[in-house]
C-alpha cells in the first residue's frame, strides 16, 4: 500500500492534537447528568461512561479514590487486590451509615466511663441483655432489674429467682437461668406488673449460659466436677432433654444462625453442637474461656488465663486470629454492636474494644478500680456492662 507523505503528516498532526486535548482534559473535570442533576467529577476520563453516575456515587461515598487524583481508568480491569479494597470499603461504609450511632450523630468512641452513666442495680449483677429499648440485668440477690435504655432509669425489679445468672430475650419473654442445683429456667412476662418470675422447668445443675435458635433454648451447665452438660428445652412443647456425652464443664453458649457453640472450661475447648446436643466439631482454646460472641461471620472467645481473644470463623471452625494486648487482662465476656466487639476484662477492671471488620484495636478503657466488670451487651447504640463488685450497670 502506498501512502502519501502529506497523509502521514496530517496523521501525526492529528495525534498531536489528540494529545493536547488529552492534556487539557486532565485539567478539566468531567460533567454528567445523574437523576436530573448536573454532577462534576475530578476525573477527566469518565465522560460518556454508561456507569458515570455509579462512578460519581462511589467517589462521593469514598468507595473509590480514582486511579489518580484526575483519572478513574474506567476500562482498566480490577485486580483482586483492588477488589478487596472496593468491597471492604463498601461494607465498612454500609455499616457506618446504617448504625444507630451514625443516625444519632454519635461518631465518638467513649474514652472513659463516667459516673453520670452508672445505674445502681441489685447486688452482684452478672448477665445483661437488651430487648431493644430496656436492659435486663440479673443480680446475685435473686432479682432482675429492668432499666430504660434511653436514660438509664430503673423501671422495675423482678423477684423470686435463685442465683439468676444469664438472661435471654425472645418470644415476648425474658428468660433467666438460675445457677443452682437443680438448675432453673425462669420466664418474666414484661407486660405484667413486676413480681415473681415464673419457674418454667428445672434443668441440669448450675447452668451458666443460655442461647436460642428460634425453637430450642440451649442451656450450658457447669458442674465444677467435669460432669456438666447441656439442657435442650423445646419452647413450644416445654419438652427437655439433657446431654452430657462429650462435655466436661460447659460455660458459655451462643447460636450463630446455623449451630450452637459451647465453651467448655473443663477441657478448654469450644464445641459446635447440633440441636440434639451432639458435638460436631471441637476446637482447642486457652483455659477459662467463658462467654463468647458471634459477629455475623466469626466467634470471638475471651480466654481469661492467657489474656487472649481467639477469633474463630463460624462457617468452618478455623482460627483466623489470636488477639493479645489492647489492655486484655482476665477477659471473660464479649459483645458486638454491629461494628465493634467489646471484651470485658474481669480481672483488669476494664474493657477492650476492637473494630470487628478488620480486627483493629480501638483501645481499652478502665471501669474503675475494684469494679469487677462481668457481663456485657449492646443495644445498637451503647454497650452496657455489669460491675459486679460495685452493684452498677455502666453505659459505654
Amino acid at each position, binding site marked *: 500500500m502506498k501512502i502519501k507523505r502529506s497523509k502521514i503528516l496530517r496523521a501525526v498532526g492529528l495525534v498531536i492534537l489528540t494529545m493536547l486535548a488529552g492534556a487539557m482534559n486532565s485539567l478539566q473535570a468531567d460533567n454528567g447528568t*445523574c*437523576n436530573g*442533576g448536573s*454532577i*462534576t467529577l475530578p476525573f477527566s476520563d469518565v465522560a460518556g*461512561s454508561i*456507569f458515570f*453516575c*455509579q*462512578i*460519581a*456515587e*462511589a*467517589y*462521593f*461515598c*469514598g*468507595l*473509590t479514590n480514582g*486511579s489518580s487524583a484526575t483519572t*478513574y481508568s*474506567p*476500562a*482498566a*480491569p*480490577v485486580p483482586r487486590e*483492588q*477488589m478487596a479494597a*472496593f468491597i471492604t470499603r*463498601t*461494607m465498612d461504609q*454500609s*455499616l457506618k*451509615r*446504617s*448504625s*444507630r450511632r*451514625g*443516625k*444519632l*450523630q*454519635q*461518631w*465518638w*468512641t*467513649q*474514652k*472513659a466511663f*463516667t459516673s*453520670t*452513666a452508672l*445505674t445502681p442495680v441489685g447486688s452482684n449483677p452478672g448477665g445483661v441483655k437488651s430487648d431493644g429499648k430496656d436492659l435486663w440485668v440479673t443480680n446475685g440477690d435473686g432479682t432482675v432489674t429492668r432499666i430504660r*435504655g*434511653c*436514660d*438509664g*432509669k*430503673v423501671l422495675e425489679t423482678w423477684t423470686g429467682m435463685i442465683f439468676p445468672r444469664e438472661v435471654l430475650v425472645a418470644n415476648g419473654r425474658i428468660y433467666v437461668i438460675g445457677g443452682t442445683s437443680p438448675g432453673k429456667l425462669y420466664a418474666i412476662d414484661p407486660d405484667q406488673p413486676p413480681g415473681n418470675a415464673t419457674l418454667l422447668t428445672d434443668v441440669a445443675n448450675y447452668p451458666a449460659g443460655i442461647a436460642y435458635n428460634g425453637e430450642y433454648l440451649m442451656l450450658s451447665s457447669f458442674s465444677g466436677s467435669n460432669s456438666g452438660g447441656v439442657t435442650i428445652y423445646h419452647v413450644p412443647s416445654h419438652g427437655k432433654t439433657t446431654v452430657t456425652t462429650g462435655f466436661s464443664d460447659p460455660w458459655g453458649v451462643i447460636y450463630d444462625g446455623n449451630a450452637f457453640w459451647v465453651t467448655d472450661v473443663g477441657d478448654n475447648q469450644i464445641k459446635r453442637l447440633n440441636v440434639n446436643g451432639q458435638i460436631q466439631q471441637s476446637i482447642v482454646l486457652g483455659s477459662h474461656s467463658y462467654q463468647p460472641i458471634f459477629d455475623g461471620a466469626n466467634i470471638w472467645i475471651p480466654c481469661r488465663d492467657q489474656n487472649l481473644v481467639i477469633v474463630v470463623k463460624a462457617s468452618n471452625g478455623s482460627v483466623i486470629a489470636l488477639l493479645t494486648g489492647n489492655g486484655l487482662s482476665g477477659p471473660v465476656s464479649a459483645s458486638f454492636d454491629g461494628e465493634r466487639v467489646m471484651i470485658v476484662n474481669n480481672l483488669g477492671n476494664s474493657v477492650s474494644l476492637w473494630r470487628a471488620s478488620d480486627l483493629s484495636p480501638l483501645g481499652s478503657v478502665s471501669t474503675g478500680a475494684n469494679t469487677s466488670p462481668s457481663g456485657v451487651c449492646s443495644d445498637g*447504640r451503647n454497650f452496657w456492662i455489669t460491675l459486679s463488685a460495685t452493684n452498677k450497670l455502666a*453505659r459505654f
Partner: protein
Amino acid sequence: MIFNLKEKGIARRAVMLLTLIASLTLTSTNLRANTGSCGGTIISVPFSDVQSSNIFFCAIAEAYFSGLTNGTTATTYSPGDNVTREQMAAFVSRTLDQSLARGSQRAALGQWWTQQFFSSSAETSVGGFPLSVKSDGEYLWVGGAGAVGRVRASDGKYIEFWTTGTDNAADLLIANGRIYALCGGSPAKLYAIDPEQPAGNAALLTTLPVGANGIAYDGEHILTANASSITNYHVPSGSQITYSSGFNQPAGIVYDGHTFWVTDSGDDKLKQVLVTGQISQVVDVGHFPGSPVFDGTNIWVPCGSNQVTVVRAATGQVIATLTDNGLGGSTAAAFDGERIMITNGTTDSVSLWRATDLKALGSFSTGAGTIPQGVCSDGINFWVVLRNSEKLARY
C-alpha cells in the same frame, strides 16, 4: 463516513444478518436459564453461562436477586470476564445503597415512602421559642427559651420540661447519660440534665465565652463553638480551656470520629480543629456556614447563601457544591443513614438529598412564617424545630 451505493447494500445485508443471528441466539438462550441448589433450595438464574457447577453459582444468584448485578446481557453474566473499574463502581455503589436501604429501621417498619408534605397531625407544640433538637434514641429533647422539653418519639407526646433559667438552649448533646444544653447569652452556659430524675432545674456545669452556638463531643472532650472562640471542656475532670486564635465567628461544630470541624461564618471557612485548639486545615465553603453534619464520609455544610458545601472529611477536599433544591437561608443539617435534611430559615422549608449519590429529593414547605431551625434524625423520622410557630414537626 460515506459509503458508496454498493457498500451501503452490503452493509444493510450484513446488519440484517447480524440482527437475525443475535435475535435467534437471544431466543434460544432465553429458554436456557440455569438451575442449581443453594442453601438446600433449588433456584434458577437467567444466565445461560453460569452453570450450577460454578463454585460462585450461589453468590452470582444472590447478587442478581438483590439487584447488585443485571448481568452483561439479559441472558449472560460472563463469569470469566474481568471486571472493569467502571463496572466495579456500579457494583460497589449498588451494594452500598442496597445495604443501607435494607438495613434501615424504616425498611423494617415498611416505611418506603418519602414524605411529600409536613402534616399538621405530626406536630407537637413545645412552646418557648425552640431552637434545637436531639434524639436519645427514644425521646426528642427540644432546646428553647429557658427550657429543654422532652417529647416521646413513638407518638409525639410532650412529656416534661427542664428549666435553664433565662438562657436559650441553642444546641444540645446527648452523651454520658446526660442531656447537655448549650445556652447562648453572656456569659454562655453549659447545663446538664439527668433524664432519670423528675423534671426540674437543669444543673449548671460551667460558664463559657459569650454567644455559644454549637456543641460536639469526641468521647472525652466537649467542644463548643462560641461567638469568637472555641472552648474545650474536659468531661471527666470538669476543666476547660478557650482558644480564640484563628477563629472569627464560629457558628457550628461536628465531630467526624477523628477530629472536630468548626464552621466560621466570619470568614466563610470550615476549620478542622484538634482538641488542643489548633486549626489543622481550612476549607473554603459558602457564605454564612451554619451547623454541619457528618454522613460517615463527608461533612455537609449548610450555608446561608443558598448552597450546601460537601467536604470529604478524610482530606478536606470539596467534593460538591449543591445549589437549588429549594435552598434558602440554610442553617442546620441532619443525617438519617440514607438522607440529608437541610433546614431553610428564610424560605420556611427543608431540602432533602440522598447522601450516597447526592441526588436531590425535593424540598418541602414547613408552612409560611414557621422559620425552621434545628433538625435531627432518630433513625425513623427527621424532627424539625419550627421556631416561630413553637412546634416540633415530625417528617
